[in-house]
């Protein structure tokens, strides 16, 4: 009697697949519905952005930074600006810093909205996605009024921001925040505490704190494992020390600590915190110039610097080496999504195929940020 033979199935997921959030590819080895392993294959969206910086110069590179992470482009703008400023020793005017923080925090809300909405859609609920897009549109309208663009902003400059807040914008922004806080509750009532939704997310893709540190996770993914590490608090930059806000961490309330539900809830709570920061910033914003005087032919002295920004996907590092000419000698961006991709292979063993989609969504992986 021969025993029944079963075969492993090798599935190719992506690069064209509805829930890979761009062009990701996974090689999935599956035993029926249960995955043995999912091997991420990155590089489909590589555009040599770091090399472009060496050819277009310091100021010309600013629009390219938008393309590093087009879901939260303000942070990449800010990171590049801060790196250049640190190297050249430029002091950004106070109002300029406030403008940066306001734009960036609005962008963080927009990015997290998209993340939680896409997560709901990956799990099969369509309505939450439409609702978050509605809210994100309004933020896009606000930012459009600020800088003329809705996706790739190119708002910041070396030494500040390109334009001051337009007249009446502050009141509109505050009005939007008054509208947004109840919307967050409504969204939670709509989907977050839904029984099916919680069952799908809890205990899926559990990351222990030690694993999170070993795999270099950053941002909400790290904080969901219970580690309180936020660049805005721990290595303060810009004017963040002037604001009061909490750093939400995961608590394993729905399942194990560091599961997908924790990552999801951390993002929801971060939006509320961003809203707090925005209210304070919009109240406290001082008058003055928004852009420091920077020479037209910007040439920082030879040297190197490293900048860390807390973007929507976590700790974003900008490493810049200058040789004293008008073009950077080397630029490197360290992004959160790339680190998050690394842990997928480890977490995927034993999960269902449906859970892989949940896992990718809960890590909030953005394809252009992985490959640059």
């Amino acid at each position: 009697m021969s025993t029944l033979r079963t075969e492993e199935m090798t599935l190719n997921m992506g690069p064209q697949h509805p829930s890979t959030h761009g062009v990701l590819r996974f090689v999935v080895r599956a035993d029926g519905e249960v995955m043995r392993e999912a091997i991420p294959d990155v590089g489909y969206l590589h555009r040599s952005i770091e090399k472009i910086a060496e050819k277009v110069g310091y100021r010309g590179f600013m629009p390219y930074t938008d393309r590093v992470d087009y879901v939260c482009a303000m942070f990449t703008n800010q990171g590049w600006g801060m790196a250049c400023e640190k190297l050249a020793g430029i002091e950004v005017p106070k109002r300029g810093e406030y403008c940066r923080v306001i734009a960036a925090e609005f962008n963080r809300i927009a990015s997290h909205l998209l993340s939680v909405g896409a997560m709901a859609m990956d799990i099969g609920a369509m309505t939450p996605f439409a609702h978050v897009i509605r809210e994100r549109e309004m933020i896009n309208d606000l930012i459009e009024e600020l800088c003329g663009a809705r996706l790739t902003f190119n708002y910041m400059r070396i030494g500040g921001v390109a334009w001051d807040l337009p007249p009446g914008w502050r009141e509109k922004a505050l009005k939007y925040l008054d509208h947004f806080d109840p919307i967050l509750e409504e969204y939670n009532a709509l989907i977050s505490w839904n029984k099916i939704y919680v069952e799908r997310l809890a205990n899926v893709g559990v990351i222990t704190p030690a694993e999170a540190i070993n795999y270099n996770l950053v941002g909400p993914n790290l904080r969901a494992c219970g580690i309180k590490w936020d660049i805005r608090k721990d290595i303060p930059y810009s004017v963040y020390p002037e604001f009061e806000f909490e750093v939400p961490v995961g608590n394993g309330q729905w399942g194990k600590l560091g599961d997908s539900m924790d990552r999801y809830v951390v993002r929801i709570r971060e939006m509320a915190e961003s809203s707090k920061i925005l209210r304070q910033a919009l109240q406290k914003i001082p008058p003055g110039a928004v852009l420091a005087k920077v020479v037209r032919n910007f040439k920082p002295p030879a040297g190197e610097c490293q900048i860390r920004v807390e973007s929507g996907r976590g700790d974003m590092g900008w490493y810049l080496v200058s040789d004293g000419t008008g073009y950077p000698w080397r630029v490197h961006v360290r992004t959160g999504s790339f680190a998050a991709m690394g842990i997928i292979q480890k977490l995927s063993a034993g999960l269902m195929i449906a859970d892989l989609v949940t896992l990718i969504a809960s890590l909030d992986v953005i394809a252009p940020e992985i490959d640059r």
Partner: protein
Amino acid sequence: MHTLIQNLIAWGVFGKNPPRDLVAAIVVFVMSLIVFLVVALPFGGIVTWVERRVWARIQSRVGPNRVGPQGFLQWLADGIKIICKEDIIPDEADSRLFKLAPYLVMLAFILPWAVMPFSSSLILADLNVGILYMTAVTALTVVGVLMAGWASNNKWSLIGGVRSAAQIVSYEIPAGLSIFPVVLMTGTLSMQGIIRGQGWAPQHWFLFANPFTFVAANILYMSSLAEANRTPFDLPEAESELVAGFATEYSGWRYACFSMAEWGNLFIVGAIITTLFLGGWQFPHVTNNVVAMNVLEVITFTVKVLFLVFVSMWIRATLPRVRIDQLTTACWKYFVPISFVNMIGTAVWVAIWPDGNVAIGYIMFAGAIVFGAVFIQRVIYYLRRSRMEVYLNPTI
């Protein structure tokens, strides 16, 4: 149908003393064509438009509103477009099975209309095993879906097909067991017999006949959603996981067959529930005119069915999808045991009160009204709370 034919002959539509068999054949043929071409097929199309509009409202969008009044002809435009598409059959596919599969699914959608009780005399065939026939032919879907998944020679399709098989076969059991309480109470399997066992008033419906039938109705509705591959049980075509599941490789008319059957099955699901638990076409006897009475009955039946169709759209717009292990757990660990309890409970109930207990009917109906009132009150509460200029646009 018998009464209809007899009436037609009595009214002299076919002249004096026509051959009864021939007349019966002609009437059944014409009625089948009408049911199929005027009701069944357009319903599968129109309901896609309705669903898109309902979804759009729930998602604070507008939805298709360009083709025809309120976008009503959108389904025709989509249908014409999809028929004009090339019918691609992949080289590596098992082409015979691949071609056959959509027609099996379509067949499973068309056959149940034979026993669809639109009114007291409008039913193509009042089989004495009507409800059994209904469940039997709707289960044919699984053959088509599994065939499509296998013949596509695509791993995503295969997973979709196997998921569908696991799902439909599992959920047949609680669905079948939930029909038993009604059969126990009426002692017949005929659709018309079951409807005649109920009254027009809600307290005489089997939904409120006793607590067990109420639970059975809910289990039957959920199981039917699972069999019709609807959210939250739409795993076979989970688009965020399996692209389009078993239908991934299909295009053109064959794809249209799948989607039409899928949406059309909503009507069948609604019709089964309406017949078994919601009093079917029962309408108070207001006139002696047979034609007027039949029209009223058809309207009653259709409204009840469309309400259930709307509920399933609502569910689809609200709920996320369950995972395959949760799906089977829900079926085998909860639905099947509860269905057995329902069956035994109803049997005991019938033994105690062979003619039913109207007091319980009134109490349960009152409970349902209270529940509905609380629900509406909650909805109004949430609407009030989110009245904060929902459509506020800061730039305007």
